[in-house]
C-alpha cells in the first residue's frame, strides 16, 4: 500500500483514499462525495463519508461493459455445450476423442469455451464491483480479545464449582478407573491395523533366484546365452528369472512353455530384476577379488560369480529403489536416473558417487548344459532399498 503511494505522484498530497487500480481517478470520486451526494440525500447502507460512489455516467458505462462480459460468458457456455456434443466418445468413421489428436482438439475446445465462460463471469463481476458499486472504505473496531477479568473469574468459578459438584476431582477411584477404562480402547485402533500386512520375516531377503534358474530378457520370452551379450549394443541386458509353473517343464503342447510360465508378479520383478553386463577382458578391478564364500574349503571370489566376463547385478538401486537403468559402456558406470547414485560395474558395483548406502548386490551366475545363462544361487544380501537389517540372515 505504502509503496504505491510513495510512487503515485498524482495521488500524493491529496490525502484522499487510496486509488484502486481500474477505478476512475480520484477527482471524480471526490467531487461526487463532496457535491453530488450530500449526506442528507445519501441512501446507501454506509455513511456518505465512507462511500465513494461513481458518477452516473461511469456507472452506466460499467453496466454496459459488465453486461458485455456476461454476454461473452453466455456464448462461451453455449460453446462449451456444443463442443461436448461435437465429438462422440468412441465411434467408427467419425472424429472421436479416442483418437489422441481429436481428443486434443476436443480438450482445447471444451477448455477454451469453459475458460471464456468462467472468465467472462469473473470479469463482469469485477467490473460490476469496481464501476457500478461505490467504493467503500469502512472502519470497524477489532474485537477486544481477552475477556474482562470479571468474566474470566466468573467463568472460572462456575467451571470449578461444576467440576467439584460432579465429583470428578474429589473421587479419585472413579476418575482413575475411567482413565484406565479408556486406555485399552485407545490401543484398539492401532491393534486393528495389524492385519494390514504380513510381517517382513525374510521375505525381502529371498528372491526367485536359485541355483539353476534360467534368465529371460525382460519383456520377451527369450532365454539368454553368453553370446547374446557380445551382440548387445549397450553391453547390457535387463533380465528376469524364469520360474515355470508346475514341474518345471513346459505344460503346453509338446512341452512348450506357455505364456503363463513366463509370467512373473510385479513383486517378484521388483526384487529379482538384474542387469547382465559384459566386461571386456582385464577390465575387472581389485574389488572383484573379494572373497565372498567358501565352498568345500576353497575360497571363492566375486570373479567366481561371473561367467566369461559377464557379471550380474541387481537392477534396483540400493538408495530408494528406482531401477538403476543407465549403463555407460566405456566407463563401466551404472547410473540411477532418480538420484544419480553411480556404481562401478567393473569393481563389484562399488558406489562411486551419489547417496546410495551400499553396492548393488551381485548375483552369482554360470551356464547350464544347454549353454543358457543361469543363476548359481540367490543374491548374497537383500536387493532393493537399503533397510536396517538388509545384511543379516
Amino acid at each position, binding site marked *: *500500500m*505504502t509503496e504505491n*503511494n*510513495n510512487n*503515485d505522484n498524482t495521488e*500524493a*498530497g491529496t*490525502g484522499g483514499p*487510496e486509488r484502486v487500480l481500474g477505478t476512475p481517478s480520484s477527482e471524480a470520486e471526490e467531487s461526487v462525495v463532496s457535491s453530488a451526494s450530500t449526506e442528507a440525500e445519501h441512501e*446507501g447502507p454506509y455513511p456518505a463519508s465512507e462511500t465513494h460512489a461513481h458518477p452516473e455516467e461511469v456507472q452506466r458505462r460499467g453496466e454496459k461493459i459488465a453486461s458485455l462480459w456476461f454476454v461473452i460468458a453466455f456464448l462461451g457456455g453455449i460453446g462449451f455445450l456444443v463442443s*461436448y456434443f461435437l465429438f462422440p*466418445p468412441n465411434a467408427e468413421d467419425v472424429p*472421436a*476423442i*479416442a483418437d*489422441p489428436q481429436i*481428443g486434443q482438439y*476436443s480438450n482445447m475446445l*471444451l*477448455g477454451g469455451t*469453459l*475458460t471464456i465462460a*468462467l*472468465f467472462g*463471469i*469473473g*470479469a463482469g*463481476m*469485477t467490473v460490476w*464491483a469496481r464501476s457500478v458499486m461505490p467504493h467503500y*472504505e*469502512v472502519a*470497524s*473496531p*477489532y*474485537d477486544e*480479545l481477552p475477556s474482562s477479568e470479571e468474566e474470566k473469574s466468573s467463568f472460572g468459578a462456575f467451571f470449578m464449582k461444576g467440576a467439584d459438584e460432579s465429583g470428578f476431582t474429589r473421587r479419585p477411584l472413579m476418575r482413575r478407573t475411567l482413565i484406565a477404562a479408556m486406555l485399552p480402547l485407545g490401543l484398539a485402533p492401532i491393534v486393528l*491395523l*495389524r492385519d*494390514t*500386512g504380513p*510381517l517382513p520375516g525374510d521375505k525381502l531377503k529371498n528372491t526367485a533366484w536359485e541355483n539353476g534358474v534360467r534368465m529371460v530378457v525382460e519383456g520377451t520370452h527369450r532365454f539368454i546365452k553368453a553370446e547374446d551379450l557380445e551382440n548387445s549394443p549397450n553391453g547390457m541386458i535387463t533380465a528376469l528369472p524364469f520360474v515355470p509353473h508346475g514341474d518345471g517343464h513346459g505344460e503346453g503342447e509338446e512341452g512348450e512353455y506357455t505364456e503363463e510360465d513366463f509370467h512373473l508378479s*510385479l*513383486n517378484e*520383478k521388483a526384487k529379482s530384476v538384474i542387469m547382465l553386463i559384459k566386461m571386456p577382458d582385464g577390465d575387472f578391478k581389485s574389488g572383484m577379488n573379494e572373497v565372498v564364500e567358501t565352498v568345500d574349503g576353497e575360497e571363492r571370489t566375486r570373479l567366481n560369480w561371473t561367467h566369461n566376463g559377464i557379471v550380474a547385478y541387481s*537392477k534396483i538401486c540400493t538408495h*530408494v*529403489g528406482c531401477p538403476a537403468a543407465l549403463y555407460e559402456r566405456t566407463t563401466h558406470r551404472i547410473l540411477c536416473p532418480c538420484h*544419480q547414485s553411480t556404481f562401478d560395474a567393473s569393481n563389484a558395483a562399488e558406489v562411486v558417487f*551419489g*547417496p546410495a*548406502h*551400499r553396492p548393488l548386490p551381485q548375483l552369482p551366475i554360470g551356464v547350464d548344459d544347454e549353454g543358457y545363462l543361469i543363476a548359481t544361487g540367490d543374491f548374497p544380501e537383500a536387493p*532393493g*532399498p*537399503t*533397510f*536396517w*537389517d538388509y*545384511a543379516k540372515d
Partner: protein
Amino acid sequence: MSKTTQAPKALRGVGNFIDDRFHLAKTGEKNLRKVFPNHWSFMLGEIALYSFIILLVTGVFLTLWFKPSMAEIVYDGSYERLQGVEMSEAYASTLYIDFDVRGGFLVRQIHHWAALIFVASLVVHMLRVFFTGAFRKPREINWLIGVGIFTIAIVEGLFGYSLPDDLPSGMGVRILQGVIMALPLVGTYISMFLFGGEFPGDVIITRLYMLHILLLPALLLALIVAHFMILWHQKHTQYPGTGKTNKTVVGTPMFPGFAVKAGGFFFFTFAVSAGLAGFVQVNPIHLFGPFTPTSITSGLQPDWYMGFLEGSLRIFPNTFDLSPFGYAIPTAVLVPGLGVMGLLFGGLAVWPFLEAWITGDRRAHNVADRPRNAPVRTALGVAGVTAYGVMWLAGSNDILSETFSIDLYLTTYIFRASIIVGPIIAFIVTKRICLGLQRRDRDTLEHGYESGVIQQLPSGEFIEVHKESSQDTVDALLSKPTITSTVLEEEVDDKGVESPHKRKPMGRLRRALAHWYTKDNVSFEGVEPHSGHHLHHSAEEKESAVH
C-alpha cells in the same frame, strides 16, 4: 441509485422463515458488515480456498470412472497405442477417462492444474503471512492450522499423483517406500503394513485412493473451515496507513462489495485452471505407459511441490551413513527424505512462539509489519526461501545439466555448496536491503518524495523538487514499530537484583538471540514529517515564483 426500500416480499418471507427458527437478524447484519481490508496480497489465500473447491468438484467427477484397483489386465480400450499391454485397472480406467469420457481429459487436467495452483497459493500465502508478521498474537493458532493444511496438502498431492499408476507415478510411490524402508528397526514393518506385503503388492492404490478422496480431504476441509472461522472471528490483519490501528480495521464490507469481488475472483481462479487444462498439457499419462518396477526413463520430474524433497535426496551425500554392528542407518535417505520435511514444517510451526520468546512481545497485533521493518525475520525468511529454492532446483539437476551442458556431478557439488552458502548470503543481503529501505523511508518521511522535477535556482544550482507525501504514506511510515525485546530491558528487578534466569544457559541464549534480533534498525526518533531542507527549497521557490 434507487431508494432504499423494504426487501421484496419473497425475500422477506425466506428471511422471516429463517429468523423465526434461528434468530439471525442481528448476527446476519453484523456478518454482512464484516470489513475486509484491501490489498492484493490478501487474495493469495483466497486462491487457495477457491482451488480447493475446484479440486473437490473435479475430484468427484473423476471418481465416477476411476477404478482404484491393481488387478492386472490386458488393455483393449480406445487408445490404440497401448492395446495389448499389461497394466493395472487403475491405469486402464484413467485411460478410459482420457479417451472415452467426453471432457474427462479436461477435468482430469483441471484437477491436476488446480492441485498445482492450490499448493503454490498455499506457499505464497504463507510467505505473505510470515513476512508481514501476521502470524503474531492473536493469530498463532491459525498459523499452526495453516502449517497443518500445507503439510496435508503436499501428502494429498503426492497420493493423488500416485493413483493413475503410470510409470512416473509408480516411481513416486517406490521412492516413498524406499524412504520408509530406511527407518531403523520399524522401516520394513511400516512398509509391509502400508503395502500389504512387498512392493508394489496389490493394495497400495486402493489404500492411497481412500486416503486421497476421503480421509485427507476431510481433514483438509475441517482445517480450512477452522482456519476461515478463526479469520472471521479475529478479523483480517491490515497494512499500516491512515486510521488503521490495532483497534480499528479499515476496508471493504462483506456486503455488497467484497462478496461480489470475491465471487468474481473465484471465477477467475477457475478460468485460469480451465485455460491451463485446455491448452497446457500436464501429466500426459498415456505417453508414460503403465508402471513396472523394472523400467524408468531419465529426466523424471515430480510435481513441483515434491521437487525440494527430490532435490535434497539427490544432493545429500552418503558420507554420514552409519553401519553399527552390520546394521544400516542410511542417513543419506533419512535426513533428506524425512529430516528436511521435519525441519520445514517444524520450523514453520515453532517460529511464532520462538519469535515471541526472543522479543518477549505479548501484545496483540492487528496491523501487519512491512517486511523491511522486521529485518531479521525477513532475512531469515529469505534464507529459508533460498534453501528451499536450492533444493528445488537440485531436484532437476539432471535437466539443468543437460540443458546447460554442465557435468552432472558438478551440478551436485554446486548445489551442495549452495545449500550452505546460499542462505547465509541471502540472510546478509536481505537484512542490508531491509535496513536500506528503512533509511529510504526515513528520508521520505523527512523530505517527502522525489517528484522527478528538476529546478534551477537563481544561484544556478539544480535541485530536484521534493513533494509532500500523502497523509496515508506519512501515517504508514510513522507507524514503523521499534524492534525491541523485553529480554534486554529488565536488567534488574525492583529490589535491584538481577534475575537468576539470566545467568543460566537458556537465559544467556535468549539474551543473545534478543540482541541479534534487535540490534540493527534505523531509528526514526526525532524525525518530523516533511521537515527536510529539500521541501523548504521548493516551498521557497514556489513563493518566490508567486511574488
